[in-house]
């Protein structure tokens, strides 16, 4: 199946807005800022664009039904082939995957992938909208809150592998500190493991500083076929592997300690990219980190560490920076991740794709990883502990 895909696809430009708890701009205006920046960075105008792929999470956040259509003109989708894709929190990485097949198929040469989220519209807190993703008959009557499923998964992960909260908290410390160098970041901070462990308990074992915030924001990338990309830029970043996988919605019917669906998505992407030994062949990774334990969970799903071993030798802050800091053994979430930069759902996943693009192009400035990266991976996750989306990029 995959052997038949001959057309190579490159990312040639990326754009992003500030990520904040509330932004005054409408979702369309935010989309315009990100899209315009991506076009400018690619050195093209909207006239050059053949099609647009929109990614945005539940309509219930922005409070606009048929949000894709609503956002279309701000994303450059006016009078063009335009489609919205949606796989919950996995949408941010799935959007460029969908744009990839638009180009790889040979049908289009230049395609925009744009992701937007305006969670502040849902007032006073977007958690209320999140509750409507649960089964209305079986789960909602119990008074379910979205954080429940993360807490249950985190507990199971800790129980099965004997991982301690002190170890998991180092991830929040790392990512929030990395975010100090990201100009768009919402919650950059210099904190300690002690701060995380003493922060307000939300849904045990999840505490305030274990969680990424709700955010407004948008991000975009421009993708082009090989012959066009080589004309437009000297530094194309190739999309060499894509993978995605969805598990059943019956999340209480599987062992939450390991995201098998992420592994399946990663295997698909790695096979396509010819990667046999992920920790050796991947130089920089942006696994999805809406919660700190999720970075460990997903890094294991991405096979960057064995099951339960992501934090094996990590006892404190120094250890995590030595292993996964920007000058560590394998830099993980050099952007600052969702924990530090913010979590406008679909735009957050796209932010990770942008980060790998900038890292591989050596444009990441103070955030630049030190290992001369050639291969990077971005991953997002979503729905009811259910979806994995993975993208491998190379220079």
């Amino acid at each position, binding site marked *: 199946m995959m052997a038949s895909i001959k057309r190579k696809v490159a990312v040639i430009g990326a754009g992003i807005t500030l990520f904040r708890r509330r932004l005054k701009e409408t979702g369309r205006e935010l989309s315009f800022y990100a899209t315009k920046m991506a076009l400018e960075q690619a050195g093209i105008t909207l006239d050059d664009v053949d099609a647009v792929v929109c990614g945005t999470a539940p309509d219930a956040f922005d409070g606009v039904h048929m949000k894709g259509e609503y956002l279309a003109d701000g994303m450059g989708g006016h009078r063009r082939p335009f489609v919205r894709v949606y796989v919950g929190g996995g949408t941010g990485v799935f959007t460029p995957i969908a744009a990839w097949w638009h180009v790889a198929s040979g049908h289009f040469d230049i395609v925009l992938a744009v992701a937007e989220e305006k969670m502040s519209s849902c007032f006073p807190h977007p958690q209320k909208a999140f509750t409507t993703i649960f089964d209305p008959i*079986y789960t909602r*009557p119990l008074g379910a809150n979205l954080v*429940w499923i993360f807490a249950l998964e985190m507990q199971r992960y800790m129980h099965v592998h004997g991982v301690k909260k002190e170890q998991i908290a180092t991830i929040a410390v790392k990512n929030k500190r990395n975010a100090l160098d990201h100009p768009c970041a919402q919650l950059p901070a210099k904190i300690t493991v002690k701060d995380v462990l003493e922060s307000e308990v939300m849904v045990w074992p999840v505490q305030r500083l274990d969680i990424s915030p709700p955010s407004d924001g948008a991000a975009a990338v421009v993708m082009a076929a090989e012959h066009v990309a080589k004309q437009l830029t000297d530094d194309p970043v190739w999309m060499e592997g894509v993978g995605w996988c969805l598990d059943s919605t019956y999340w209480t019917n599987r062992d939450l300690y390991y995201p098998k669906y992420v592994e399946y998505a990663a295997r698909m992407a790695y096979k396509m990219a010819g990667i046999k030994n992920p920790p050796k062949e991947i130089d920089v990774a942006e696994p999805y980190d809406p919660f700190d334990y999720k970075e460990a969970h997903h890094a294991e799903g991405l096979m960057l560490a064995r099951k339960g071993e992501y934090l094996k030798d990590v006892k404190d802050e120094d250890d995590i920076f030595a292993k996964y800091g920007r000058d560590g053994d394998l830099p993980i979430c050099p952007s600052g991740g969702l924990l530090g930069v913010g979590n406008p759902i679909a735009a957050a996943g796209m932010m990770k794709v942008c980060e790998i693009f900038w890292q591989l192009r050596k444009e990441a400035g103070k955030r630049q990883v030190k290992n001369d990266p050639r291969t990077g991976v971005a991953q997002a996750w979503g729905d009811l502990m259910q979806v994995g989306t993975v993208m491998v990029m190379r220079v």
Partner: protein
Amino acid sequence: MSVKVKEYRGTYYSRKDLEEGRVMAFKDRPEARYAWATGVAMGRFLAELKQGRIVGRKCRVCGRVLVPPRMFCEMCFRPTDEWVYVSDTGTVLTYSVSYLGPAAERLKEPIIIAVIQLDGASPGIGILHKLGEVKPEEVKVGMRVKAVWKPPEEREGAITDILYFRPVEEG
């Protein structure tokens, strides 16, 4: 962020800015109401709860007993074959202590929630419910629990016909 970009856009406002009118906004409350069809499996499941019983469905090919029940096996992709009653006792697979209500509001008294594998359901097949008559610090993965039901006359055919699960001593 790229070093090639000098300005990132977006205009932050605080909740106070909104409340004091420095940001213009329109407020609305769409109220969509639904009558969700329960379907065959969930309809029977709810009706059985009203009778004080918990029912699952069995797939004879993979052998799994599925709770909550469904009329098809998503792994074998074929109809499930028979109704199977499972026990109202089981084992905690994972648990959590929630200080948050559905809209992220702070709860005065936290509630304990758990994924419980009922006796008679297949390994790893759990249901979500609450725990009661137990302190948060006493809950353990692997703990044995039993359903505490509403009195029969108060049951309405809902998951909340089970009030919660409580620990049981087994000798």
